[in-house]
């Protein structure tokens, strides 16, 4: 194991509360370059807040966040980061291509429009207004907008919520493909069976990272067969 690993992101002891609501209570994690990291946790466990911390959208009360070697918040490094929000956040009155072109332009990167469109299989709908697309197509268009500037780190906040099983499989295939090409992915989810496709998993609950490791390691740690049981086991005894 290399002593000095190159991390795509380092979160160290991050604490954040909104008013009296504690969202993160000392979370530390490291994303290795080129890995698919699954952030698993129920709704309201702090997944989205953690992702927003990584983007510098939330200022931690304590702790630090480093992304691609830069201390956050840092606007410039964001051009190397892709972000897909929970709901497909697109301009509904623009076409797919116009949306892509816009998000490429604000990231100041060369647009890889055709590549992004082909990747999500929307080449034939490139001139469709987003409002006329189906939910699945919108999710794909949203993904295309998150990768159109070829980010080194891609943060996906529950990308497969409300997506049919077929598309879900396709999306995970693509995530794997991107990781192979060197992109680091952080994917949050509350669906356990998806987690099997991640290289490493972090279990988050009540704003704490309860356990971390590969699927096998987690099962072993909990002494159970199924990941879902492992999750329940590992989070037992918490408030």
């Amino acid at each position: 194991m290399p002593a000095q690993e190159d991390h795509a992101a380092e979160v160290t002891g991050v604490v954040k509360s909104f008013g009296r609501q504690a969202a993160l209570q000392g979370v530390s994690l490291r994303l290795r370059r080129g890995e698919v990291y699954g952030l698993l946790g129920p709704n309201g466990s702090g997944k989205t807040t953690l992702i927003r911390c990584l983007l510098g959208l939330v200022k931690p009360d304590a702790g630090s966040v480093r992304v691609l070697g830069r201390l956050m918040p840092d606007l410039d490094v964001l051009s190397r980061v892709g972000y897909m929000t929970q709901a497909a956040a697109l301009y509904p009155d623009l076409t797919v291509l116009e949306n892509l072109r816009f998000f490429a332009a604000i990231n100041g990167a060369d647009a890889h429009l055709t590549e992004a469109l082909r990747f999500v299989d929307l080449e034939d709908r490139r001139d469709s207004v987003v409002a006329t697309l189906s939910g699945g197509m919108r999710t794909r268009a949203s993904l295309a907008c998150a990768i159109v500037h070829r980010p080194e780190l891609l943060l996906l906040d529950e990308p497969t919520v409300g997506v049919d099983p077929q598309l879900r499989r396709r999306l995970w295939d693509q995530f794997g493909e991107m990781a192979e090409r060197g992109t680091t992915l952080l994917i949050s989810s509350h669906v356990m069976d998806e987690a099997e496709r991640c290289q490493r998993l972090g279990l988050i609950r009540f704003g704490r990272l309860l356990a971390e490791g590969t699927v096998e390691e987690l099962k072993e740690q909990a002494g159970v067969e199924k990941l879902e049981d492992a999750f329940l086991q590992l989070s037992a005894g918490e408030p």
Partner: protein
Amino acid sequence: MKPRRVLAITRRIFAQFRHDRRTLALLFVVPLVILSLLYYLLRGGGGQPAVGVVNLDTGPLGAVVARQLESSSQVKASQLDLTTAQSRLRDDRLAGYIVLPTNFSSDVLQQGVLRPEVHLEGSQPAQSGAVLQALSQSLLAALGTLPSQPGLRPPRLDLRVTYLYGGPQLDTLDYFGGAFIGLVVFFLVFVITCVAFLRERSQGTLERLMASPLRRGEIVLGYMLGFTILALIQAAEVLLFSLYVIKVHNSGSVLLIFAFEALMALSAVNLGIFLSMFARTEFQAVQFIPLVVAPQLLLSGVIFPVSSEPTWLQAVSNVLPLTYVVDGLRDVMLKGADLSWAAIQLDAAVLGAFCLLMIVAAGATLRRRVA
């Protein structure tokens, strides 16, 4: 039709209003505010144009007419000497002054002719009308006090009217036209920007913008450019239509009018971004319209001249940006004012300052979002 189902909808609407206090306030408070404003504007001692009376008459009749004018309910008349009256007219503190010349009484008694001179400011047709009306009523009342002499025909009126600006050819449209050019541009741009920016927020794309290298300043500037260009095209269209199709009077520089509109548009865009912060839904954004529109429509001098308002309302008018737009546009279009006029410099400076303030406020709005 089942009453239960109908009532379910009705009850739900009340429940929604209970959760939306702001809409409730709008529903019940705003009408009272608007009506109160109207009350103060129309009954609060305001509304009457200020008139100077210069009585030079050596005979008795002039004093009678002057007293009648002073007690007239249509104007706020006060006796002045000629030079004071002239300078006050120029300073916009009088809608006009009436001179009763030295031989006013003798002309009536010997020639049967009434010869008052009326000097009107002239840019406000309604006020000019009120002055002339008050004068004719006062003359009639004054003649009634004369001892009746059988066989004497009622005297003829030989009225001489001069106008400082404009003249009798100015009509109500000329007066309102200039103000409405500013008004229309301001409100449409404000509403469109406010809703557009709110949509950016509600559809989640603002979050995406924030997660990109975009600077706050770049977002505000980009919005400003986009909507200002649209607003300027609109302003140009409104202006050309007003001047050449419905032929609103203009004695000033078209470019200067356009410059005022541009400043207004720029302020409106940033006010829109700023206020969109305080709305959660497009419904709430639409509610800003009466809040922003109603007081300015009533108090910025569009309909009722600011100088005719009660003093405490004038103080309110003086902080409304539209007051300066209306004043500036009227000065340019009706009086032919240019940039060398102190009044125009003041209007432009206040608008420029308001514009800057709104730009800063819009930027600060985005800052708070990221906290």
